[in-house]
């Protein structure tokens, strides 16, 4: 089972999607999508509902056929192949367990279909049961299992197939919050141990941040930004990426309120300034960059979210470590380090970085994002 990553050296891109378009009458789908996924990596497709992330997964799986473009898995063009010939397994959001079959029969369903010898089947079953901690539950029906156990049966069914690629479609969304957190670590550990390449779809940014080697943030059928979680968090390529990752989302302040020089001398009125909540410092009135008033605060244990109103009507959320006792109505001022300032074009949402000065503010961002800006200007 651990021999999956055997011929790893050949091509770092294990899965390649090349200019794939798939649209639906009712909207949704993906448009001219290109991406590569490295071998043995954990890639998360992230985005709001309807952004095309599930369509992308189904295209990789072969459950959808692209209108145009190519899909290559492990150097093999699989665009026209049925799902069973693509060498992959899927964990469905609903788990898709067969309700009339026992745990054991569910797990070995595919092995039986492929006429794997009984001894081999038994061995793999035992291994998968042990890996997922399901030993002892072989004879149960899915209806007699808890949500977490069902989820693990679905995982065991994916493992037992021995495929190098595993696709997961929001596998944790039917679990309660506490369980979700521990299963997250289990899945990650399992993936590392088996050397599987995982493509994981979710709309939950904390899942993406916590699990991914690579995050592909999608929006309206296109890729918004692609890279390691830290890159997406620290240098979001667009205002959308800045707002989607992180809790609370990055605060946006109208540029004309901020007495800073915009990169390249752009007109500040056409820009927004983004600041992460943890970079905001609360200072006594008059000392900081901008005056502000406390609206409310939310104590979360290790930290407190302080909601503030700025002079121009904008709202920001500061993330203060520990407890913060400032009462609503308190006037103060906020500031942040120069390095924590992110400039975005208000119309296109594109990042304006000091390094690559754009001739006009509507020009695209530099950096790892090939397809931004996505929003039509004006």
């Amino acid at each position, binding site marked *: 089972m651990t021999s999956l990553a055997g011929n790893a050296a050949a091509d770092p891109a294990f899965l390649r999607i090349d200019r794939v378009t798939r649209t639906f009458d009712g909207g949704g789908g993906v448009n001219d999508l290109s991406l590569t996924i490295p071998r043995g990596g954990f890639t998360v497709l992230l985005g709001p509902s309807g952004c095309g992330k599930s369509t992308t997964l189904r295209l990789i*799986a072969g*459950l959808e056929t692209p209108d145009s473009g190519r899909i290559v898995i492990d150097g093999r063009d699989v665009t026209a192949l*049925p*799902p*069973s010939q693509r060498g*992959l*397994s*899927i964990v*469905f959001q*609903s788990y*898709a367990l*067969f*309700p*009339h079959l026992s745990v054991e029969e569910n797990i070995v*369903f*595919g092995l039986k*279909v*492929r006429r794997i010898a009984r001894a081999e089947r038994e061995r793999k079953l035992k291994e998968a049961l042990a890996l997922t901690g399901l030993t002892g539950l072989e004879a149960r*029906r899915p*209806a007699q299992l808890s949500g977490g156990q069902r989820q693990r049966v679905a995982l065991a*069914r994916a493992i037992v*197939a021995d495929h190098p690629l595993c696709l997961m479609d929001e596998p944790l969304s039917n679990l309660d919050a506490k369980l979700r957190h521990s299963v997250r670590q289990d899945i990650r550990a399992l993936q590392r141990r088996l050397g599987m390449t995982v493509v994981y779809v979710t709309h939950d940014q904390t899942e993406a941040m916590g699990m991914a080697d690579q995050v592909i943030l999608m929006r309206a059928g296109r890729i918004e930004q692609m890279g390691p979680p830290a890159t997406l968090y620290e240098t979001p390529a667009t205002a959308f990426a800045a707002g989607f990752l992180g809790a609370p989302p990055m605060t946006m302040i109208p540029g004309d309120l901020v007495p800073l020089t915009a990169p390249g001398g752009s007109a500040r009125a056409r820009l927004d300034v983004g600041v992460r909540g943890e970079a905001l410092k609360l200072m006594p009135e008059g000392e900081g960059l901008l005056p502000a008033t406390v609206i409310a605060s939310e104590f979360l244990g290790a930290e407190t979210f302080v909601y503030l109103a700025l002079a121009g009507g904008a709202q920001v959320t500061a993330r203060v470590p520990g407890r913060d006792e400032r009462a609503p109505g308190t006037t103060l001022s906020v500031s942040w380090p120069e390095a924590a300032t992110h400039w975005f074009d208000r119309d296109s949402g594109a990042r304006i970085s000091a390094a690559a000065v754009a001739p006009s503010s509507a020009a695209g961002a530099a950096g790892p994002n090939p397809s931004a800006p996505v929003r039509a200007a004006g």
Partner: protein
Amino acid sequence: MTLTSPMDTRPADPRPMDPIARQRRRMTAIYGWLLVMPALVLLTLFAFLPTITTLWASFHSRGTARRPSVFNGVENYADLLADPTFWTVIGNNVLYAAVTIPVSIALALLMALWADAKLPARGFVRSAYFTPTVLPMVAAANLWLFFYTPGIGVIDSFTSLFGLPSVNWLGQPQTALGAVMVVTIWKEAGFFMIFYLAALQTIPPDLREAAQVEGASRFTYLRRVLLPLLMPTTAFIFINALINSVKLIDHLFILTKGGPNNATKLALYWIWEMAFSYFDRVHAAAMTALVLLVLAVVAIVQFSVIDKRIHYR
């Protein structure tokens, strides 16, 4: 008189109750009886009483004005068993059930699988399949009479194009029962299809995709996943088909009237004939009792044996 509610399962309290509590309890009991009253009255009038009088009649001789009816034990039953028509009718009905039930169920499943697929004219296909069910059996029988009529019927008009001789489908013992079965299957399959269609739509599409990814062919998916999940529906349809194979005789009145030479005589038609054509009420009652007995046995088998092997969600 003690009046207790049918829903009252509390053990009787031996201690004397105070008058108000007793009054309240009696009101609850009356309320309960009032609620079950409509069903109780209707069932008694149209199910329990007729059953009892039928059983009663089946053990008594046929009364006339001069000789009143007397108890004669199982003599009516013995008469039936001695009657060759009885065995013809039983044989007909068994054959009728053995053919119409599996064929209409299989056909219903096929049609449902097709009508559930992504077809361009899915609505039309579904309603076309369902049309026979909407028609009254008598109307359907008249329609088929028009098909079967020798010489001028639709079937004969068609076969004569190829120079085939005219066939009197309903008029000869070899083909009459088969012709009647065709009408039954045509009428029933569309009705059963609706149940399969409804059941198919409750099966999540994920299961098909999961099976597909595992490499299961359409046939494997049908055999290992779809059919087991449809078993509750199949059991329900089977019981309905079985009851109908005894119950549904309307078309015999139009098509064959049990002939020729008893070739299409089914149990219930024979009972009707005995009771209302020959006014032999006691033998009709005895035959009815036998039919009830068989159906009761079937129901018991269904609930005790088959039910355990079915996966209900």
